[in-house]
Structure formats: C-alpha cells, structure tokens
C-alpha cells in the first residue's frame, strides 16, 4: 500500500510547474516533495503561516517551525512567516496556484468529500474547505477504490461535502482524470492498469481521451 501511495505522489509531482505557489494537504500529498525535480522553483505554503517551506530537517528540529500537519520543516531562501489569518487570506484570495489534497470521494462534477465519514472518528474540517474554495487549481489524490473495493470516483458524493465543483484533476494509482464542463475525462492510464479495470472500478461515466 505504501508503494501505491508513493506511485500516486510521484505522478502528482509532475503537475507542479516552475514558479508555482503550492499547498499540499496531509497524507499522500505530503509525500510529493520527494518526487520533485530538484531544480523546480516552487514555493510551498503552509496554512499555519509559512510561504517557502523546505524539507524535513536532518537534525536540530525546531518546535516553533512546523508544517500544518504538526511536523518539523525548514525554510528556503525567500521564505516568510505570518499569522494564520494572513495565511488563509492568501488561500481564499486566490493566491495559491495549486493545492493537492487527499480525498475520500470525488464526483464527476468535481465535488469533493474529504473531511468526514459519518459514524467514524470525527477529525474536523481543518483548512480543507478554504483550500477547496480558494486555490486556483485543485488536484485530488487518492487510492482508486475503498478498502471494500467500492468506487471513490462517483456520480454524486455520498459522504458530507467539503466543497462543490472544486476539483479540476484526480490522480489515483490507476489513472489521471480531468474534470471539464462536459464531464470526467480519462487522460492517462497508469502503468500496471488497464482501461477495462478503470471503467469497472469507476462509478462515474467517463469520456475516454486515451487510446
């Protein structure tokens, strides 16, 4: 399963372009920096108050320099610290080029559910609703199906929503999808997967752009 998560992260890393400001959610997205080309010029934002977050410190972790998941980080040259109100002002104000978030379900129209499974442990919504609202581009990353094999790319989300019509792209270990006004496009089949498998494990209707 670790390999599946790393496979998704490696593919998602290719979506990050030079000069972008990117906010990564917890879970699979937090693995993405490991797969970036080192020469990529990118600024990672953390919603607790950093622009220009760097990798995990090798040693001498600083308890006051933490990412939004609570783990120690470093900063790159040009970084700045600020309070949480400014951090979320940036997010809602449309200054984050790309956010990559983990997902529980995504609908064919780009509705995102990623914060609450009724009857299970209640973590709360954190900053996900604002990233979904404000990021210029939102990519959802997740394993293609649930533990019971049920599809997570669905016609309509069954789980409580984080935001409507916010996801522009979905990356799983089986495929890459784009959400366009005319529907859900299959853009790319990942190595080890087949068109038939993807169609069978996806509830939403697909517009197939791959041959």
């Amino acid at each position: 399963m670790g390999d599946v998560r790393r496979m998704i992260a490696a593919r998602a890393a290719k979506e990050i372009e030079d000069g972008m400001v990117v906010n990564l959610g917890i879970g699979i997205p937090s693995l993405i920096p490991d797969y970036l080309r080192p020469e990529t010029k990118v600024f990672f934002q953390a919603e607790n108050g950093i622009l220009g977050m760097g990798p995990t410190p090798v040693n001498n972790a600083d308890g006051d320099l933490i990412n939004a998941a609570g783990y120690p980080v470093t900063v790159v040259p040009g970084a700045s610290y600020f309070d949480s109100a400014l951090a979320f002002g940036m997010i809602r104000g449309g200054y984050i080029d790309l956010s990559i978030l983990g997902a529980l379900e995504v609908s064919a129209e780009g509705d995102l559910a990623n914060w609450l499974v009724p009857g299970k442990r209640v973590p709360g919504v954190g900053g996900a609703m604002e990233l979904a609202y404000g990021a210029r581009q939102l990519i959802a990353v997740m394993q293609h199906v649930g533990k019971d094999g049920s599809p997570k790319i669905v016609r309509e989300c069954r789980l409580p929503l984080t935001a409507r019509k916010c996801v522009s792209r979905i990356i799983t270990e089986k495929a890459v999808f784009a959400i366009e006004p005319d529907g859900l496009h299959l853009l790319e089949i990942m190595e080890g997967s087949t068109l038939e498998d993807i169609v069978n494990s996806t509830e939403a209707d697909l517009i197939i752009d791959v041959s």
Partner: protein
Amino acid sequence: MDSFNKVVEVGEVASKFFHGMTLMFGGFGGVGTPPTLIDCLIESEVSDVHLIGNDAGFPWIGIGKFVVLGRAASLIASHIGSNPVAGQLMQEGKLVVEFSPQGILVERMRAGGSGIPGFASEVGIGTKLSYEKPVLDIDGKEYLFESALTADVGIVHARKADRYGNLVFNKTAQNTNPYVAMASQTTIVEAEQIVEVGSLEPDEIHLPGIYINFIIPSEGINWKWVWET
C-alpha cells in the same frame, strides 16, 4: 496596575480564570500554545470552560492536556483529530464541539477583536457546516454570515515581550496568537524572554502591547512533540 509593567508571577494570574468562562487559546497543534499557562489553568481547578482555538491539541500537548480532564464544556475549533480523547468526550455528549473552517475561525477571532460584528463568506456553503448559519442575500448572491468570536480570557505565547506587552513571535508559533489577544477581554501572555520597555524596535513588534493585560515568564515547553515520541 501599572500599564507600563504588566509582568506578574504565574500564581497571580490563576485568579483570572473562572468557572464557566470562555477561554480562547493561541496555537496550532500545540505550537504556540503557552505551556506554563496551560498548567496554571489545570491547577486552577476551574471547570465548565468554553474553549475557542484552532484545534484540541494532542492528549499530552497544549490545550489537549486540559481537554482530557473533562473540564471543558464546549469547544469551537477547526479539527480535533489529533486528540482522540476529545472525540470520545464529544461522542459521549460530554463536550459540545462546533467545527469552523480553519481560516474562518481565526477570521472570526479577528472580527471579535476588531469591532466587526461578523462577515460574509462563501466557504462551506452547501456543506454540513453551513446549516445553522444565517444566510445573507446581497445583490442576489447568497453568503453565509460568520459571527465574531470573543472570550473572557485569552492565553497566548510569545518569543519576546517587553514589560508593556509588545510582542515578538517566533516562526510558526505566531499562528492564531495575535487574534486571541485581540478578541479576549483579559489577555495573559507567556513569554520566553521579557525585556525592558524601549528595547524592541517599533518595526519589529508583531503585536502592540495594547492587547495585553498580564505577562508571565515562560517555564518552557514541558511536553514531547509527536515527532519526538
């Protein structure tokens, strides 16, 4: 009280906590939550406390140390996932939890401290979090009305304070602290370093001392971070 010297002993601030109070706390996952004041709160034996802050900490970190004692009646936060005891208390009906999106929560604190009764938002429209909020219709568009939050007492953490209460925060330990200070009737700051008035540069001060009522010296972090365990 001498407003130009707000420094007191830890023992003196315990009397500011009271049964049934609304308490706002700074911090994000415990980072920037004042450890000495958390212990002071625990020792004060007050209960039925209404908490407002970013999250529920961890069971052994930050506000979490107080939450697990069952002495909080309610909590307004953006998530409690890092403190399973909080989730359990919530399921048992012993802790009333109101979730607010994270940035909306700190914005509501800012509003409370800035004389803004509330603001319009599109975040969370059409989700479970929006059901009980007033809906505004402005020029044919619908928004949620997010109301200001204020508290009786606020506890914040700073890297440095001068004796007037001008504060300098450190890195990501700033987070919600400025807004907790603004939105609380009585604000107590715990500072790692206390300096004389006039020794901070006016442009380096992150938060003017006008928002601070009492300053105590920090005894330092007394918990292990998740990544240290």
